[in-house]
């Protein structure tokens, strides 16, 4: 058997047996392999091998694991739902943290326009999807929150760049602070004559 095939077998067995996703470094360390590049190459080959199969090899936030193919979900779904149902508030808070991280509680609340009950963040932290990520160096030094590797795992994201629609949101300025957006909007829509003003008037007078 070639060295590459042998390494593939080894990685396959290790990732099958592992109880949690493993990074390339963790794999290299566990297997006593000096060269992470070799591991990466073998993982890529292994991933290709599994593409058409009922089990896939996926990378989430730099960590690798096997999981069943998404198209087989209907056959595997258990009677009792294993996934915790998130309240609407929790869902929204999670999205705001994921798209804005790191973000403070006050910032979350200003986007949602309501206070966030203590339980909402707790639920997300208990699920292991969100965790405190230091403090912002502004008056009051508020704690800021960010998503975790488990968040990427759970939602099948290779990285935060994979968040649905994040590029468009960023491009349209919807992830910028409100004050910045206001300034930008005021700059581009001069009050008096001009198309922009016309539109605005029209909107307002409707």
């Amino acid at each position, binding site marked *: 058997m070639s060295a590459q095939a042998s390494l593939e077998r080894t990685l396959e067995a290790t990732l099958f047996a592992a109880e949690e996703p493993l990074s390339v470094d963790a794999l290299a360390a566990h297997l006593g392999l000096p060269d992470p590049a070799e591991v990466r190459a073998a993982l890529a080959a292994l991933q290709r091998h599994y593409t058409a199969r009922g089990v896939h090899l996926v990378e989430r936030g730099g960590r690798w694991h096997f999981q069943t193919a998404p198209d087989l979900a209907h056959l595997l779904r258990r009677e009792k739902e294993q996934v915790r149902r998130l309240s609407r508030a929790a869902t929204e808070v999670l999205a705001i943290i994921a798209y804005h991280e790191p973000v403070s509680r006050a910032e979350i609340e200003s986007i*949602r326009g309501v206070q966030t*009950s203590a339980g909402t963040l707790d639920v997300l932290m208990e699920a292991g999807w969100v965790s405190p990520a230091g403090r912002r160096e502004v008056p009051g030094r508020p704690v800021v929150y960010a998503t975790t590797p488990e968040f990427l795992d759970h939602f*099948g994201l290779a990285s935060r760049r994979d*968040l649905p629609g994040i590029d468009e949101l960023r491009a349209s300025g*919807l992830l910028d602070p409100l004050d910045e957006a206001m300034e930008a909007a005021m700059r581009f829509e001069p009050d008096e004559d001009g198309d922009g003003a016309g539109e605005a008037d029209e909107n307002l007078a409707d």
Partner: protein
Amino acid sequence: MSGIEQPFMLADAGAGEGDAALVQGAKPGEEALYLELDGWEGPLDLLLDLARRQKVDLRQISILALVDQYLGYIARAGALRLELAADYLVMAAWLAYLKSALLLPKEEQEDPSPEELALRLQLRLQRLGAMREAAARLMARDRIGRDVFLRGAPEGLRTDRKTVWRSDLFTLIQAYGQVKARTAPRIYHVANRPVITLDSALERVSAMLGVTLEWMEIRDFLPPHASPELKRSALASSFVAALELAKRGRAELAQEGAFAPLRIRRLKNSAQARVEA
């Protein structure tokens, strides 16, 4: 901002997350009264929902129409329990103000202009709308435990740490030696240290004072060739001896300042005084 803040954050802990409180407060008979607000996470959320009904694109909504829709909605839901709907009512008041400001001639506007406030509201709605959509798309992904599944019974990876102990013969016999030494019966003895007693210092100092009437420094009284240890003892006992002589009226002490040399001199009349006594 000139005191006109948008009332988004007025909901207090009591109301908490608006809809949760409303739902909890609902009892069968009263349901109809406030189910109206069930499902909204506060006034901004209700506004967003109303805006969505206008047009698909939040950038194109009419704020005036939105204000009317909101006020109409609140009016229809007039039987709301007030304490639960307070933040909705505050928003209604603010929107009514915004509407009247928008309708006034431009010259009479204060800063920030109502257009600015309206734009701000619109941007907030866009942001909340964007996050709501993002949340929905996030929840629709292939989620572990719902759409994709991990290995049901992984063997698990284990790293067993095995300790290899190390020692050597010298350490071993040294340890034994120390056990024996530690547990052997012990004999204590107090070492004989070289000291100058107060009595001998007294003798020595008064003898030396008898020789001259000049001031002498206390270190002049110390034995010149003594070891450092003996010198320390001599300094201490000579000092006490000097104090004792001063107390008896046979010598006087002088020191210019703290840590300055301590000087000592025989009192001139001391011999005489003794005779008289």
